[in-house]
């Protein structure tokens, strides 16, 4: 962190100022002048928190994608299909078990197993042929999408929110003053707060595993120089299996989460594939921190864009991607290889 601050003092200052300004906007009661520019405070803060939650979901999907890409140079274009498959499976499991929480580990295992199978049976046979691997993932996404349409049909599903998470929570943020002069506190769905917390916990967990354990060391070494790692006697196939299984499982869990606070339908797979692509391109390919930053930016831009310019929120996302590509092709946090 201090390294970054020392290397880019101007950018750090700008980011800090922006963060402080945002915090000030959230914490202070708004004057009529601000309300004239930005609309009601409740709307703004809600969009902000909605963006945070959406960013958390994007992070869950994109972190597996970027990990697989960073280590294996495999652009897994079937990642969105794994997301949707996880959601559908989670719907079935949570209905059968009658408990939402059961769905998460079961889906993680099932989709992770599918990922292991794919890596072991398919991608291992064409190692080093990146283009061919990518084509295979495209074919897989077409086949999976049609099989899911076959099994689950075209209607949309929503997972039942567990009882202990349904309903709104009151946050200690004043969004306005009611007629009697008493402050009105912001209310936000508990389930979204839970998603945010889950994403942060998973992100921290991944960071700890990557930076503090032997497996993490192997993964980081593999991202930097795969050939050298293989040459030093590591059975890299096992590392590949672990990473692919974990990334796929994470996509499945994200499907459960996404199916709870949004809905599952054909077409969601490409939506989340696109989101992962944009997040990873913006953040920097192969970097978990980059995925977190990219997911945060894209989630916020999408939600705030939806509130203030509904027609063009997709364009904002795309503009950010084009800008990053034009000025920093390796992503905001990413090494030029």
């Amino acid at each position: 962190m201090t390294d970054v601050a020392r290397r880019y003092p101007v950018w750090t200052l700008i980011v800090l100022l922006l963060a402080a300004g945002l915090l000030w906007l959230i914490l202070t009661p708004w004057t009529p002048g601000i309300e004239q520019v930005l609309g009601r405070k409740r709307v703004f803060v809600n969009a902000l928190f909605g963006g945070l939650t959406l960013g958390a979901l994007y992070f869950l999907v994109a972190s597996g994608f970027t990990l697989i890409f960073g280590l294996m140079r495999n652009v897994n274009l079937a990642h969105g299909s794994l997301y949707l498959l996880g959601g559908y499976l989670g719907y079935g499991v949570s209905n059968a078990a009658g408990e939402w929480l059961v769905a998460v580990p079961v889906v993680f295992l099932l989709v992770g197993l599918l990922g292991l199978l794919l890596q072991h049976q398919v991608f291992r046979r064409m190692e080093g042929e990146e283009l061919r691997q990518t084509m295979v993932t495209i074919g897989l996404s077409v086949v999976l999408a049609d099989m899911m349409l076959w099994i689950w049909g075209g209607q949309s599903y929503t997972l039942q929110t567990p009882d202990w998470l349904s309903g709104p929570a009151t946050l200690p943020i004043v969004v306005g003053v009611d007629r009697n002069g008493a402050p009105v506190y912001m209310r936000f769905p508990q389930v979204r707060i839970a998603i945010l917390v889950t994403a942060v916990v998973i992100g921290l967990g991944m960071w700890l595993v990557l930076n503090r354990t032997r497996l993490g060391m192997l993964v980081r070494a593999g991202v930097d120089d795969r050939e050298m790692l293989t040459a030093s006697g590591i059975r890299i196939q096992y590392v590949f299996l672990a990473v692919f299984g974990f990334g796929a499982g994470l996509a499945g869990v994200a499907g459960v989460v996404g199916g709870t606070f949004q809905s599952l339908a054909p077409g969601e797979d490409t939506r989340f594939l696109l989101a992962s692509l944009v997040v990873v391109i913006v953040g920097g390919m192969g970097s978990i921190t980059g995925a977190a930053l990219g997911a945060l930016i894209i989630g916020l831009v999408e939600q705030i864009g939806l509130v203030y310019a509904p027609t063009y929120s997709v364009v904002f996302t795309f503009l950010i991607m084009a800008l990053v590509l034009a000025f920093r092709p390796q992503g905001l946090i990413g090494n030029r290889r």
Partner: protein
Amino acid sequence: MALTDKSRDQRAGTPSGSASWPDLVMSIPAGWWATGCILLIMPALASDFWLFQVFGWSFCLGIIALSLMFLAGYGGMVSLIQMTVAALAGYMVAILGTSGVQQISLGLPWWLYLPLAILIAAAFATAVGALAVRTEGIYTIMITLAIASAFFYFTRQNYEIFNGYSGFNLVVPPRVLGIDWRQPTAFYYLALVFAALCFLAVVYVARSPFGLALQGIRDNPRRMAAMGFNVVAHRIAAYGFAGVIAAIGGILLVWQNTQVAAFTAGIGAVIDILIIAVIGGLRRPIGPFVGAFIYVLLGTFSPDVLSAFGLSNERFKLLIGLGFLAMVFFSPDGALGLWDRWREARRRPVDPLTGQARPGSVP
């Protein structure tokens, strides 16, 4: 530098330009002449349904896939933007020309809106290319796919220019020379002529100095850069050229469907073009047409075949996806590669195991 010399080099550099006519005729294999003749007299043999739905559609998709084949086969850049460029050209024809949506269409004459549509689509392709060539290999797929999806979501939501979800209907070809070009026979010849023109253009450009430099860049960009070729400019120019071809295919496709909407360039359609090009083979310009023909045959007749096997007749995508997977697994150079290997195996006079002449082999 080499790029600016392109036109002069092209005139001087083609071997066939100086050859006499009989040589030129003889240099083309007999199979090509036969195929050409059969295609020319096809309207006498086939029904209107085959002419319009099967061959017409195959030519349109084939032209778009041809532009991808040019980029991937000669430039080494697998771009998923070609269908989007094609759809943009179709949109431009609908917006600048006439369509069922009176309040948006401008109703310009055809000699003005056709060049404009191709020009705008090619400019868009060049701009995308300028972004995409900043990255290499698999990154190109990711970035072009992201841009293609952004275009799809944008056209689906924008009602002022692109008329959103429903798009434009009643987009028909103009009456030129007093012919209704949407009649099956007329459309067949229209699509055939443009397919042949695009095919010949790609063959010509691939053998021109520009095309040779592009293939050099595909094989070793660093060495070509060291030899003084502007790698980035060549790649962007390739995107521009492929954009023109995709635009022609897109306009024909829109005329065939009489409509263009957001789903014309949906993610599925974008990936279908890649599937067509890969199934046919990315090595030679004829591959995309073979792939498109296979794709259209599957798309038209798979319901009958599937229901014969007792499956639901909606599983066309599953069939196409499995076929694509099998192709990527067993024959990375597509159906043409399979054909080549089969001929090679038949031609081999001795059995590699025993050293004996193989029975029934063609010497």
